[in-house]
């Protein structure tokens, strides 16, 4: 269990080894919403939860890979909504402790060919399921409305359907289960959560 419940901005910055202004920027952009933000007079005091620290760690990793802020905000939104939905079913659920637990599902974020967002879930070396296929570029340009994307992209990418790895071929070996053609970024949220030094 994590002993600490709250971190101030300066503590969070030290914990993550990042300058405070980067964390402030991410808060001001609405990417990370402090769980214990307290407005005081003309100023405000941001206080962060362990969940916020995980969000920052994921965001900073994605930003390191030069993903745009809005893309990162969308990813963090999914993680938050996902945690809320699981907590609706499992009392007391909290994502960071769950991910740090033994036999925790491996939750990954995949950016395929610089424009398609997927998440994948699996345990150990077993089969993984792939979710999503949201095209950020089309969303950004308004070419496809989100409702259309849900129908055409998510459904066509068989959301929730088990991914079966096909026999190896040069193209498939590179592309991962989502079938990236030229480039893919894959980040393990579970691994990031496990590596946060929260127990010290």
């Amino acid at each position, binding site marked *: 269990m994590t002993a600490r419940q709250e971190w101030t901005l300066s503590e969070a910055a030290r914990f993550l080894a990042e*300058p405070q*202004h*980067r964390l*402030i*920027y991410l808060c*001001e*952009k*609405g990417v990370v919403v402090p769980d214990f933000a307290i407005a005081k007079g003309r100023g405000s005091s941001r206080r962060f939860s362990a969940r916020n620290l995980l969000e920052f760690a994921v965001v900073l990793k994605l930003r390191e890979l*030069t993903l*745009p*802020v*809005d893309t990162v*905000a*969308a990813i963090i*939104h*999914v*993680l*938050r*909504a*996902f945690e*809320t*939905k*699981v907590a609706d*079913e*499992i009392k007391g659920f909290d994502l960071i402790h*769950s991910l740090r637990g*033994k*036999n925790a*599902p491996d*939750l990954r974020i995949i950016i395929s060919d610089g424009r398609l967002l997927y*998440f994948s*879930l*699996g*345990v150990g070396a077993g089969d993984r*399921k792939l*979710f*999503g296929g*949201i095209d*950020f570029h089309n*969303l*950004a340009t308004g070419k496809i*409305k*989100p*409702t259309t*994307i*849900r129908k055409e992209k*998510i459904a066509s990418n068989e*959301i*929730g359907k088990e991914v079966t790895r096909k026999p190896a071929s040069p193209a498939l070996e590179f592309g991962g289960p989502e079938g990236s053609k030229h480039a893919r970024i894959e980040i393990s949220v579970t691994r990031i959560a496990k590596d946060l030094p929260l127990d010290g």
Partner: protein
Amino acid sequence: MRAKAVEPARNPDVSNQGWNPATNPAVRELLDHLADELAKEYIRLMKQAEKVTPAIDPNDGGHRK
């Protein structure tokens, strides 16, 4: 050199593309649907792990036989 409170706006990498879930309800709805599917699978995996994993004895350093 004075520390800046924000990243430079001229950096195209940080530009607001107008589909931030915080400001775009349609995008938020789409992402919530994705989160819902993820949550169902996560719960299924957690329940599966409970069935497969025998109870852990805390007096045994968390190891299972």
